[in-house]
């Protein structure tokens, strides 16, 4: 039996690089031995991706992407399909958990400098995954055809209408109709179940290829490949399999306990994971009292709503201040000139374009700035463990702003809330815009030779 198995494996291996792939990516992929709990979230994101794909396939077997049938088909799944309620809750709980896990994964990258060279591409692919995931979640949210699904999509797609000249045409092109309608539901369904999952899986593959090319970062932010033993193996590295496979299995089971606790006991999580207004079917004539996206979109939604006419004045100030700071700091005369030109263009644009469009631009920029992180960070060290007070303070302010914006996104946009959201928006962006300065001037601690416990 043993012999037969070995022979079969040899037969396959002669035609397909099974052993090579196994070794390169698992048995002889050396990962730093000092991973802490924040390093579980990469594997967990993969687990969730599988949960979403499998539960999604079963939902697709019973769901009807038709404006007249969609809402009822979800209730049909909840009642008449065997275990349908479990599949549906798995998918809805999975959506929110996906974002929790991905946010933790990004936070890990942020504090340990995993975006720094040589991992720039790894970070960029990761950010593209994040943006794709947001599109995937947004389109999936329309499918139950509840009233919040409907009005949420209506609000977000109408944002495209703010783009000059082509805006209205573009919004109509996306919807396939003058309002959110059956055509929109059908194309969102196609994108949600076929196009975007394919893109996501492809990107995740690219993310892993990039990771295994450059190797994992670690909480100390030092390169284990620079310290190899006589056998050519990093002295601080351990093979991913079996060490991290068994450790990740443990973490996955722990994660599944939390997942099951929500899925079985509080699938709505008090309206945070499933909104109350979405238990009413889409109604063109009845706007919900507050149109609120699900929690994972609220920080960006807050930035969008904070961009009022008053915010334009704040943006003038920020633009001028950043321009002056840049002109003083750069040596090259051409760079100084370029800065002035860019600032002038932005100031003119602030005068011409309407605030609604600036809201859209800022919302988009709040994601795009993440792509710039590898080049904005000028610190000689990567990990927060060896950084000084400036970075730690900036990071704390950023995280607080992110949560405050997230909370305000769920609240009515009244006077005081909008003011706080404006402050939060400015602080959110300053974390990135000022990064070249505070990471340059920040006092850092000396790096250790070997990874620490």
């Amino acid at each position, binding site marked *: 039996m043993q012999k037969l198995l070995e022979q079969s494996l040899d037969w396959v291996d002669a035609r397909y690089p099974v052993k090579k792939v196994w070794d390169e990516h698992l048995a002889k992929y050396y990962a730093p031995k000092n991973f802490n709990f924040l390093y579980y979230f990469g594997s967990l994101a993969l687990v969730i991706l599988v949960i979403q794909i499998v539960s999604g396939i079963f939902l697709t077997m019973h769901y009807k992407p038709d404006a007249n049938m969609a809402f009822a088909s979800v*209730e049909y799944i909840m009642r008449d399909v065997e275990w349908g309620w*479990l599949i549906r809750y798995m998918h809805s709980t999975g959506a929110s958990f996906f974002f929790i896990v991905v946010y933790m994964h990004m936070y890990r990258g942020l504090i340990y400098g995993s975006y720094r060279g040589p991992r720039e591409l790894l970070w960029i692919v990761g950010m593209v995954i994040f943006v794709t995931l947001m599109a995937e979640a947004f389109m999936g949210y329309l499918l139950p055809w509840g009233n919040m699904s409907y009005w949420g999509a209506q609000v977000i797609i109408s944002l495209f209408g703010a783009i000059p000249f082509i805006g209205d045409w573009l919004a109509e092109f996306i919807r396939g109709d003058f309002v959110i309608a059956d055509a929109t539901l059908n194309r969102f369904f196609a994108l949600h179940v076929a196009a975007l999952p394919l893109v996501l899986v492809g990107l995740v593959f690219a993310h892993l290829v990039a990771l295994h090319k450059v190797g994992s970062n670690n909480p100390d932010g030092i390169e284990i490949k620079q310290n190899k033993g006589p056998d050519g193996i990093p002295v601080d590295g351990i093979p991913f399999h079996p060490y991290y496979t068994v450790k990740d299995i*443990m973490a996955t089971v722990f994660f599944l306990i939390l997942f099951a606790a929500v899925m*079985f*006991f509080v699938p709505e999580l008090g309206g945070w994971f499933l909104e*109350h207004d979405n238990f009413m079917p889409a109604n063109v004539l009845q706007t919900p009292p507050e149109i609120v996206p699900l929690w994972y979109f609220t920080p960006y939604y807050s930035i969008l709503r904070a961009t009022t006419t008053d915010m334009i004045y704040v943006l003038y100030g920020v633009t001028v201040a950043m321009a002056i700071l840049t002109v003083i700091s750069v040596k090259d005369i051409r760079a100084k000139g370029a800065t002035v030109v860019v600032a002038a263009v932005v100031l003119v644009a602030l005068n011409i374009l309407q605030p609604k469009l600036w809201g859209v631009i800022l919302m988009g920029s709040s994601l795009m700035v993440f792509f710039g992180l590898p080049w904005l960070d000028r610190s000689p060290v990567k990990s927060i463990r060896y950084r000084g007070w400036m970075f730690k303070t900036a990071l704390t302010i950023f995280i607080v702003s992110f949560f405050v914006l997230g909370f305000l996104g769920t609240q*009515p946009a009244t006077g005081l809330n909008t003011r706080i959201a404006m402050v939060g928006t400015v602080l959110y962006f300053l974390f990135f815009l000022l990064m070249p300065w505070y990471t340059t001037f920040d006092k850092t601690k000396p790096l250790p030779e070997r990874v620490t416990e």
Partner: protein
Amino acid sequence: MIKKIIIVLLLSVPALGLAAGNNLKLDSVDIDLSDKASLQRGARTFINYCLSCHSAGYMRYNRMGKDLGISDELVSGNLLFAADKIGDLMKAVMPAEDAKKAFGTVPPDLTLVTRSRGPEWFYTYMRSFYRDESSASGWNNVVFPDVAMPHVLYSWQGEQRAIFKEHEGRRVFDRFEVGSSGSMSEEVYTDTMRDLTNFMVYLGEPAKLVRYRIGTYVIIFLLIFLFVAYLLKKEFWKDVH
């Protein structure tokens, strides 16, 4: 500037209206889906009264019977007014067009009302009708001002009048005063509405009957799995220093 103020005021009008409705304290209700007798009483009230005008169009009669321990024969014989087959969806007896003529609006489907508005809302709403000669139906409701629905169960509850008071320049609900009593005492009517609310929570999500129990087993299994996975990890990691 003046334009801005007007816009702000206009925008805040619906918000104030909502606030008036939302400021009303909703009564908490004791939901117990393991109380089969309560669910059965609630089902009887729902099918005999509510289902005349409202649908529960995502729910089937036989599923309800199975979950609530009512045999198909009993459901067919006693509860099947608006449908032919036991496997039919629970549609309203009154056709939608007739309802529109009578009330000016189609009564909403109630399958998910406790999921969208909450059990407390439903429980308070059903006990908050009052006489209002100025409205079309002669009834009004403090939880849902100017609702088109008349007090269908008034022969049970009797008539009550709402007393309002001035508060910061607005008319707010203060308390009810009993007008004439109905066939039920206040206590019996409250219990009946509690049973009905209990049933509505079940109706909103039949899976609630099983998911807590299954969830408990799943988590117990995962805890054991976690312990084994922890031992496995510990064994392998012994040689990492």
